[in-house]
C-alpha cells in the first residue's frame, strides 16, 4: 500500500453517533429478548423448580379447606405468623388420623389430605368460576371442603375399643360402600408437625423413630393373615360353586384331614372338629380348619381365587380414594397350599378394609359395593362440586348363596366362637379369626373379627359391616372372639343406635 495515504472521507459524528445509538438499542433489545426467554419460554421450568418457594408460599397463603365428619369440620387452619401464612390444625387429630392423613408444610400431604389436596388447597379447576379469567388475574380460589362418609359414633367406638392395643377397625355400610369408621392404633396427632418450625421437625422425628409405628394406617395400608375370618370367603366359594349345596348336610370332609401330597394333618383348635360327617354350618360355628381346608381344595384354586378377588383380594388399585394396600390370595399354589390358604393362612393376607368388604358383601346379598370415604366435595361457599354415587365393586355371589353364608355367620355369633358380638335386639352375623404368624408361629397371634348387624326382624340390608384386627395385645388369651369381637360389637351398636 502507498505510504502517503489519500485522505479518505471519514464519517462524521452524526453518523457514528447514530450508530452508537443503534448499538444501545440493540443492547436494550437483547435484554427484552432475554426477559421474554425467561418469563415466557422458561417460566414453567423455573416455577416448578423444587427450590422455588413460591408454590409453597401461595399454597399456604390462604386457609386450607376442611375435612368434615357428619357435617362438622375435624380440621382447621391457623395463622403461623411466618412466611407460610396458614398451617393445618386438627380438632381431634389422633381420633381421625387414619381418615385424614396429614398435611404438613415440610412433609407434604398424605391419604385424604393428599388425594383431595388440589380441592383443599384451592387449585382444583372445578373450584374456578371462570377458569381462563382466574388464570389471567391469578385469582386464588378458597379451598373446598371434603365431606367424609365417616360416622362420628362408629369412629369413636372403634378408637375407644382399640384403646392402647395395636390394631385397626374398618366399618362399611354394606348397601352403599360408605366407609363408616377407619381406625388405626396406636395413632398420632397429624397437627403436631403441620407447620415448618423446629418443634414440627422434632415431633415428626419422634414419630418416625417410634417402633410402634403410630403413623402406619393399619386399616388401609397394612395386611395381616386373615386366619379363620377367611373361611367366610371359602364357604361362599364352596356354596357358589356347588361344592356344598346344603349347609346342614355332611360335607364329606375326612377326619383327620391330611394335606394333599403331604403327610401333614391339618389340625383343628378344638377337638370337636376332629370327626367326620360335619356339616358346613357346624364347621363354621366351631371354626374347623380341616373341613374348610378340604372344601377349599374341592372347590379348586381357580374358583377360590375368583371368589377372593370378588371381595377385593389381589386388587392393587383399590382407591377409596386413598389407595389401600393390596390384599393377597396366591394364584399359583399346589393343593396343600390351597387348603392352608382357604383357612386364611399361607400367603393369604388382607387389609381390615378388605375383610370388612367380605362381611359387607355377604350382608348386601352377595353384591360387594365399592368402598368410598368421600361423601361429597364442595366449594368454600357450600356449592357441591361432586357427590358420591354408590357403585358396585363386584357381584360376588347370588343372593341365595349370600343368604346361606349369612345364616352361617349368624350361627357363629349365636352358637359359636363369635358369641361376644351378640347384641340384644339385633341380628348379628360374624366370624372370628386367630391367625398364627412369625417363625414357627411364635408371634402373638392376630385376633380378627368380621361381622355385620341389623335390627332383629329387619329384612333390609344390614346397615353396618365391620372388620377388626388386633395385631399385638398384652392379653394372655389372644383369640378373635375374645379380643376383636367386643370392639366390633360396640362399633355395630354405635351404628345401629345412630340409624
Amino acid at each position: 500500500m502507498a505510504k502517503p495515504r489519500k485522505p479518505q472521507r471519514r464519517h462524521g459524528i452524526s453518523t457514528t453517533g447514530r450508530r452508537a445509538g443503534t448499538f444501545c438499542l440493540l443492547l436494550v433489545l437483547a435484554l427484552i429478548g432475554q426477559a421474554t426467554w425467561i418469563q415466557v419460554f422458561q417460566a414453567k421450568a423455573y416455577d416448578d423448580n423444587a427450590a422455588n418457594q413460591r408454590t409453597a408460599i401461595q399454597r399456604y397463603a390462604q386457609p386450607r379447606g376442611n375435612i368434615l365428619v357428619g357435617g362438622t369440620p375435624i380440621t382447621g387452619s391457623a395463622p403461623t405468623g411466618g412466611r407460610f401464612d396458614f398451617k393445618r390444625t386438627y380438632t381431634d387429630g389422633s381420633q381421625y388420623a387414619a381418615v385424614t392423613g396429614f398435611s404438613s408444610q415440610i412433609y407434604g400431604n398424605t391419604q385424604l389430605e393428599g388425594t383431595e389436596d388440589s380441592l383443599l388447597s384451592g387449585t382444583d379447576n372445578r373450584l374456578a368460576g371462570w377458569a381462563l379469567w382466574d388464570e389471567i388475574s391469578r385469582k386464588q380460589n378458597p379451598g373446598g371442603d371434603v365431606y367424609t362418609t365417616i360416622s362420628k359414633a362408629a369412629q369413636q367406638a372403634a378408637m375407644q375399643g382399640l384403646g392402647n392395643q395395636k390394631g385397626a377397625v374398618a366399618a362399611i355400610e354394606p348397601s352403599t360402600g360408605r366407609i363408616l369408621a377407619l381406625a388405626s392404633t396406636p395413632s398420632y396427632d397429624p397437627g403436631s408437625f403441620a407447620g415448618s418450625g423446629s418443634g414440627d421437625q422434632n415431633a415428626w422425628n419422634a414419630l418416625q423413630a417410634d417402633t410402634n409405628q403410630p403413623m402406619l394406617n393399619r386399616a388401609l395400608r397394612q395386611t395381616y393373615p386373615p386366619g379363620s375370618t377367611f373361611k367366610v370367603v371359602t364357604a361362599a366359594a364352596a356354596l357358589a360353586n356347588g361344592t356344598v349345596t346344603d349347609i346342614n348336610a355332611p360335607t364329606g370332609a375326612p377326619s383327620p384331614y391330611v394335606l394333599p401330597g403331604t403327610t401333614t394333618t391339618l389340625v383343628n383348635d378344638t377337638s370337636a372338629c376332629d370327626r367326620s360327617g360335619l356339616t358346613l354350618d357346624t364347621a363354621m360355628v366351631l371354626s374347623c380348619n380341616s373341613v374348610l381346608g378340604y372344601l377349599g381344595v374341592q372347590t379348586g384354586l381357580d374358583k377360590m381365587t375368583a371368589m377372593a378377588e370378588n371381595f377385593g383380594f389381589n386388587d392393587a388399585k383399590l382407591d377409596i380414594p386413598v389407595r389401600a394396600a393390596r390384599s393377597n390370595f396366591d394364584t399359583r399354589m399346589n393343593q396343600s397350599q390351597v387348603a392352608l390358604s382357604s383357612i386364611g393362612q399361607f400367603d393369604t393376607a388382607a387389609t381390615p378394609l378388605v375383610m370388612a368388604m367380605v362381611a359387607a358383601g355377604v350382608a348386601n346379598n352377595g353384591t360387594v359395593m365399592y368402598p368410598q370415604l368421600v361423601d361429597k366435595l364442595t366449594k368454600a361457599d357450600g356449592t357441591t362440586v361432586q357427590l358420591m354415587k354408590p357403585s358396585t365393586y363386584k357381584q360376588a355371589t347370588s343372593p341365595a348363596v349370600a343368604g346361606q353364608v349369612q345364616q352361617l355367620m349368624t350361627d357363629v355369633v349365636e352358637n359359636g366362637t363369635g358369641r361376644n358380638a351378640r347384641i340384644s335386639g339385633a341380628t348379628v352375623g360374624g366370624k372370628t379369626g386367630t391367625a398364627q404368624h412369625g417363625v414357627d408361629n411364635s408371634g402373638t397371634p392376630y385376633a380378627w373379627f368380621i361381622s355385620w348387624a341389623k335390627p332383629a326382624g329387619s329384612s333390609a340390608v344390614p346397615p353396618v359391616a365391620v372388620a377388626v384386627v388386633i395385631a399385638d395385645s398384652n392379653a394372655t388369651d389372644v383369640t378373635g372372639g375374645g379380643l376383636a369381637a367386643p370392639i366390633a360389637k360396640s362399633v355395630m351398636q354405635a351404628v345401629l343406635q345412630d340409624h
Partner: protein
Amino acid sequence: MATPSALAAAPRLPPTGPVRSGRNVELVLVLAAVGIAVFGYVEVGVNIDGRAPSDAASYGAALAALALLAHGVIRWKARYADPLLLPLAILLNGIGLVVIYRLDRATPSSHVAPTQLLWSTLGVALCLAVILVLRDHRILQRYAYIGALAALVLLILPIFFPPVYGSRIWVTVGPLSFQPGEFAKILLAVFFAAYLAVHRDALALTGRQIWRWQLPRGRVIGPVLLVWAAFVGVLVLETDLGTSLLLFGLFVVMLYVATARSGWITIGLLLASVGAVTVGWLSPHVHSRVVDWLHPLASISAGQGANQIAQSLFAFAAGGILGTGLGLGHSILIGFAAKSDFILATIGEELGLVGLTGLFLLYALLVSRGVRTGIALRDPFGRLLAIGLAALIAIQVFVVAGGVLDLIPLTGLTLPFIAQGGSSVVTNWIIIALLVRMSDIARRPPSTEEV
C-alpha cells in the same frame, strides 16, 4: 436514532416559523409521570393492605411539587430543552420509589423509601442547580483535566475505607455512605469528550498503518489510555467490576463516535476479552460470578438451595407475561440487595414481561433523546458528551439488567433512577441536567443563541 434521515436534516435547517419549545408537552407528561407513580404507590397499598397508604396524598403532593418545580426551572432557564427528558426521569424515579416502598413492606426492619425520597429530592435540587449555574456546557471543557484528576481521587478514596460485601466502593462518613465511582463516571465522560473533541482528527488521520488498521501516535492516544488504565486499575483493585465494565464500554463507544475507526473497537474488545479472562481466572470473586452465570441453578443441585441468580430467575419466571401485580410477588426471597442490584427482578415479577419491556423502552427513549441531542448539537465536545452520557445510561442498564437476567455475569451496578442508592440517583439527575442544558442549546433558535 430510529429515523436517521429526518434527524440528520432537522437541526441544520433554518427555523421556518416560531420554534416550539415543547414546554406544555413536558408539563402534561410530567403530570402523567407523577400520576403513574402515585397510582403505583396506591396499588401497592391496596394489594397488600386492601386500602391506599395513608400518606398517598402527601406523597403524591411532594412528588408533584418536586416535578413542577423542576418543570418551572426548565421553563425559565432552559426553555428549548428536549421535553421528554424531565418526564422520563420523573417517571423512572417515581417507579423506583414505588418499588422500593413495596419492598420495604416485605422487610419490616428496614425502611429505605423515605431515605430514597430524600436522595431523589437532593438529586432534583442538584439537577436544577446545574441547569441554573451551567449556562453553556462548553464551559465544562475547560475543567476536563481537573475533573479527571478529581474523578481519580474519588475512585481511590474507598480503598481507605473498609470493604462492603467484598467490594471497596463505599465511602462511609458517620451514618452517610456513598459510592464515589458513581460521580466519577460523569467526570470521566466530560474528560473523554473534551480530549477527543480536540484530538479526534489527529487520532483518526495520523499514525502508522499496520496491516489494515491505522494506529494513532502514542503521544495522542497515550493520555487517554493512561487515564483510562488508571481508572480500570483502581476499579479492579476495588473489585468493582460493574463500574470498570461500564467505563470501558463508555471509552470504546466515545472513541468510535469521535474517530469512526471501527478497528479500535475490535482492538478494544480483544483487550477486554483478554482482561476479562485473566481477571476471571485470577480473582475467585469474579470466577464465582462467571460460574453462577453459566450454571445459575448449580447451587440447587448441590443441595445448597437457590442462590441469588436462581432466586432472581424464579422471580422473573413467576411474573410471566402480565406479572402478579404490585405487592403480590415474592422477590424478597432474593434476600440481600433485593432493593438495589436486584430491584429489576421485583419489577419483572410484579409487572411481568409487559412492565419490564415498558421499562426497557423508557430507557431506550431516554437514551435516544440523549443521542438526538448529541447529533443536533454543533460543537464536537457537546456532541461527544451528549452521546457519551446517553451511552452511559444504556450500558449501565445493560450491565445490571443483563446480570440479573443471567444474560451476562452479574457485576453489581445500580439500575439508573430505580435502584436504592443515593449516589446513583443523584448522579443520574446530574446527567439529566447536562442533557437538558445541551438539548436546550441544540434546539434554541439562532436568534436567541447569544445568552
